[in-house]
């Protein structure tokens, strides 16, 4: 930016120019910060509402700050439902998101290695097919997959099949995925081939090269994939809604949607619930923002 400004044809006395530059800089700051605050309004409002009493929410000006910090809204929300707490939903979400993340890390990195490093027949066709699944709306396969899971036996569920268990929400992740495969393949291609060649001369087979050279070097890309998959699983609503049947198995999103149906008008508790459900992702984002940005900039995918 500064390079461009100084490159502009010089006009006026130097002091007037620098004053104008300073004014412009301040204007940029003010505009960007004001815009940022505007983007944050829903979050700020969620926070202030969650700390108000219900009477306060409806009587006082919506922009006012809470008179006292009513943290009890959070406890009320946490224990609002019979037989389960919000903690149960959290636990379910963590289990599902973790398993899905592990599955994607293992199988996408394997596929990515094959596409980046090995030569085989139908490589192009297969890769094109995988990329094509990126632009196919996954809702097309909702019904066939539901039927598939309905015929897969599972002795520990009420139905005797996978419906009503969390299996359909993470087992798929152990069978590859387009986003992760593409992301990691790009990363593997950038690793100097000499490393693999040297290992091969030493008698290492492709599996050893993959495990000892490529996986350790790809840690940043693996972190990006892990973060995205965790976020997608955490935020997913449609699949848990279809497959989970009992309250104790609900994930945070389904629990929250259920909560909304049960507690119409209880805005402070509802905002407390929404905020708590977002908190893990917000913390993850603040800590690992560069991985999010890199993942999107590299492959441009969102949930």
């Amino acid at each position, binding site marked *: 930016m500064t390079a461009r400004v100084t490159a502009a044809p010089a006009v006026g006395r130097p002091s007037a120019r620098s004053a104008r530059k300073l004014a412009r800089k301040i204007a940029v700051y003010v505009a960007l910060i004001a815009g940022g605050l505007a983007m944050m309004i829903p979050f700020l409002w969620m926070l202030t509402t969650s700390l108000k009493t219900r009477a306060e929410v409806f009587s006082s000006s919506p922009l006012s700050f809470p008179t006292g910090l009513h943290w009890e809204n959070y406890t009320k929300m946490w224990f609002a439902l019979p037989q389960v707490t919000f903690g149960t939903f959290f636990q379910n979400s963590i289990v599902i998101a973790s398993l899905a993340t592990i599955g994607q890390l293992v199988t996408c990195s394997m596929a990515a290695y094959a596409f980046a490093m090995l030569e085989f027949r139908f490589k192009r066709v297969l890769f094109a097919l995988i990329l094509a699944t990126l632009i196919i709306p996954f809702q097309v396969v909702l019904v066939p997959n539901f039927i598939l899971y309905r015929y897969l036996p599972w002795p520990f569920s009420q139905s005797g099949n996978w419906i009503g268990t969390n299996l359909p929400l993470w087992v798929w992740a152990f069978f590859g995925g387009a986003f992760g495969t593409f992301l990691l393949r790009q990363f593997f291609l950038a690793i100097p081939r000499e490393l693999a060649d040297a290992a091969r001369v030493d008698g290492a087979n492709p599996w050893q090269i993959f495990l000892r050279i490529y996986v350790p070097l790809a840690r940043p890309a693996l972190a990006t994939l892990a973060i995205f998959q965790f976020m997608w699983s955490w935020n997913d*609503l449609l699949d848990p809604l279809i497959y989970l049947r009992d309250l104790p198995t609900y994930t945070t999103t389904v629990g929250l949607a259920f909560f909304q149906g049960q507690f119409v008008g209880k805005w402070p508790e509802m905002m407390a619930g929404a905020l708590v459900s977002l908190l893990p992702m917000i913390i993850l984002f603040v800590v690992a923002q560069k991985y999010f940005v890199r993942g999107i900039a590299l492959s441009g995918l969102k949930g």
Partner: protein
Amino acid sequence: MTALTRLGDRAGRATSPGQARPHGGPRARESRWALLFLAPTIVGLAVLSAGPILAAFGISLTKWDLMTPPQVVGLDNYARLLSDDRFLKALRNTAFYTVVSVPVGLTFALGLGVALNQQIRGIAWIRTAYFLPLVTSATAIALVWLWIYSPTGLLNNLLATFGISPQRWISDPTLAMPSIIAMSIWQGLPANVIIFLAGLQAIPVEYYDAASVDGAGRRSRFRHVTLPLLTPSIFFTGILALIGSFQVFDQVYVMANPGKPSEATITLVYFIYENGFRNFKMGYASAASWLMFLIVAVFTILYFRTQDRWVHYQ
């Protein structure tokens, strides 16, 4: 970045001349290794994605409630869909959502991307504020916006200070869809802004210097340097926004109090969910999903066709 954009010109030459090779030797051994690495992916493709797309078409030709064996009914489901008022409403709402949210969302994101492309102190923190909606679930966000839009909510209170009478943002059929679109644009901004920022930062500074030397002003530099060089990013975000806009579900599910949207806000995916997993009409839901698939495919292909006319690759 280039994966999807390159897909178009790849499709034509799927098999390259160098692929027919004799069996045996190191090449065959490498193929066997590849098969090992790719086994999970190939199974997934066959059983969970590519296979089911074909299966969905088969199911769409039947009447099936999962309790009794499926009956083949031919194209009956499709014919019924086209005269089903609720389906046509879902189609219309989804089309409206796409036509409004894609261009408006991308324009905002482009402006914001240019605005955030500054080398100033603290820009990382400022960007964090803009990027935050990226990681939030549509479910929680829809709850917050439900409260913003509620009769006693923030929006009506703000408008009251300007003397505008309160509106029923969600329950009024004409306002419901625009309200949902506004929320979705807000939530979708960060991802598009990040792609635009990456595109902007890839533009060599020399281009701007050269334009300045030629006497180009700020606006002219944007028009003749930034915009043309950003067309790949615009093309790319366009395809993502297009596909994403056909998949709207969470917001509609949460906002339509709860889980039963009226004809004003029902979307295609909600229609599929409702018929497949609430009414257990598997054939009917599959037919709807196949129509959606066809619509998305046709628009995607048409969109890729326009690529040569306006996208400039460096």
